[in-house]
């Protein structure tokens, strides 16, 4: 195990603990940048999908993992970002960058509007309220037909940045790099928040609202800001998702997407940025794995293509149950345990990560 000899306070503030840490993340980013040269178009599309889910996941992670406010309605903000972007760009002819940023801001604003009445709700009640929001979204998209195209849906306008045409199908490389850039920027912003006073205020509100107040942290303001930032990030993911799907209608942003998002961050590991990425990878890989498995079963049994409705949701549910039972800290928690195991070998003890109560403390503190 490496022990850092800290000589300045900056040691605890800077992004990377040491040069090795910085190198590791640097290599990861380099690999990510080089990915279009290593993968074929199909796999690159999957990688893009992972990045978009990870951005959405980071949005929800901020709200649920760090501020402790569960939301089952984030598909609504994906939709808000997606439609706002498509309308601003397609109808008002805004350039991509402006439209993209504004779409996030609009989704964030919607989030703040939702947060204000939701401030009095805690835990499961907040989850139910946001679930209702998610259900309403579909109907709203259909009803707002003049703007959203209703059931027929919309198509994402073409992206052009500084004269460069980016098209998800025509130039998957550029679109991947665009998503990667957004993901990296969001990750950096997220990391910065976590090491700044606002990040600590989030933790304070999550762990004990009453003593957060005694410390001068206003739970109402903190939660509203958390909702705003969270929904803004998710809105950006939604805007990218629109380009990724190319055509979209009310059926894209269903409640299932909301649940999948929440599931994703729980599987990835609540309260860590890594968790959003791990969870996104799982969400992207599982459907493909099911497809492969299905083809294989069909081949072995000779029964032709079997279609089992709801299989994907069922598999996700099973994975979630296994994680909650055996690894409540998620993939990130498991990775940390493995790392500590190897770093301390042979001195690792089984109860080093004794399970802690993971229910939301704010529920007790009303």
């Amino acid at each position, binding site marked *: 195990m490496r022990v850092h000899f800290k000589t300045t306070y900056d040691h605890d*503030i800077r992004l990377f603990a040491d040069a090795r840490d910085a190198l590791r993340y640097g290599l990861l980013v380099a690999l990510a940048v080089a990915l279009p040269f290593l993968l074929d178009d199909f796999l690159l599309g999957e990688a893009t999908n992972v990045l978009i889910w990870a951005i959405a996941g980071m949005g929800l992670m901020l709200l649920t993992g760090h501020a402790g406010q569960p939301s089952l309605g984030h598909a609504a903000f994906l939709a808000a970002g997606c439609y706002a972007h498509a309308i601003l760009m397609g109808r008002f002819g805004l350039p991509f960058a402006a439209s993209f940023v504004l779409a996030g801001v609009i989704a964030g604003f919607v989030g703040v509007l939702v947060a204000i009445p939701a401030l009095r709700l805690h835990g499961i009640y907040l989850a139910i309220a946001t679930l209702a929001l998610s259900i309403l979204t579909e109907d709203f998209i259909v009803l707002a037909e003049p703007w959203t195209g209703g059931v027929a849906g919309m198509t994402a306008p073409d992206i052009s940045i500084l004269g460069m045409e980016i098209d998800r199908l025509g130039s998957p490389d550029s679109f991947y790099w665009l998503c990667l850039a957004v993901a990296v920027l969001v990750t950096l*912003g997220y990391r910065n928040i976590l090491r700044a006073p606002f990040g600590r205020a989030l*933790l304070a509100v999550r762990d004990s609202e009453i*003593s957060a107040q005694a410390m001068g942290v*206003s739970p109402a303001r903190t939660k509203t*800001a958390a909702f705003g930032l969270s929904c803004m990030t998710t809105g950006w993911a939604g805007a990218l998702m629109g380009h990724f799907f190319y055509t979209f209608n009310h059926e894209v942003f269903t409640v299932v997407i909301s649940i999948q998002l929440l599931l994703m961050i729980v599987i990835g590991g609540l*309260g860590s940025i890594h968790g959003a990425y791990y969870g996104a990878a799982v969400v992207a890989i599982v459907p493909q794995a099911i497809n492969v498995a299905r083809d294989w079963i069909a081949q072995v049994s000779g029964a032709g293509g079997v279609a089992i409705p709801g299989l994907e949701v069922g598999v996700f549910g099973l994975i979630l149950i296994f994680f909650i039972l055996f690894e409540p800290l998620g993939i990130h928690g498991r990775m940390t345990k493995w790392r500590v195991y190897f770093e301390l070998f042979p001195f690792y003890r089984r109860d080093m990560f004794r399970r802690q109560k993971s229910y939301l403390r704010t529920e007790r503190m009303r």
Partner: protein
Amino acid sequence: MTLLEVENATVRFGGLTALEDVSFRVGQGEIFAVVGPNGAGKSTLFNVISRFCQPASGDVRFEGESVLGHSPSGIAGLGIARTFQNIELFDRTTVLQNLLIGRHTRRRASILPQIVFAPAVRREEIAHRGAVERIIDFLDLHPYRDNAVAGLPYGVRKVVEIGRALSMEPRLILLDEPASGLSVEEAGDMRFWIEDIRAQLGVTVLMVEHNMSLVSAVSDRVMVLADGRIIALGAPREVQSDARVVEAYLGTGTAMR
């Protein structure tokens, strides 16, 4: 000089009167203890001062300004810090993070510079860290700095909570039973810390405490509450020999409990 002034504070929970017409003043630099049997209204009094509880009538003034116009989260900004009877720390973070949250009222940067972590934010963070390190020094918390709060022994968490309140650099600190649940040795340490909080940091202390040897050792004045009313107020020795106090605690004669 009067720092805190409670005037005719009355609190009712439905038909129960938790505090009735309570008035007292705490002077600058004083160690003021509130004692009384269970249910006397001590914690209610603290909750009134920190605005978790709205009095039916009366006023609470801090440095001459009424605190009743502030929200619970605005009280810290005035310079009043508090601890809780059943430790209320931020369990899933480290001791250092807990103490840094205590610096919340001193933050300057708005959210946008925080997202890009502007140089000003970094400078501010380093200054906060310096202030927190002084508290860590003061309370001997060095060994626990990077430990998660949830795994710490009870006695240490109690000290961390006081540390978190002190990181605010308050002018008044409300300690709700600082020695409850502590061993004799830890309670002895607590005594010195309470004295040092005033002597070295110049913070006025208002505390609720059951441990009478601690109360009489550190406090300048003691107020005894019973059934929401003040039954005695004075130097520890006077109060302890007061007939009504003995009555309230031992339940002899005509006292209600």
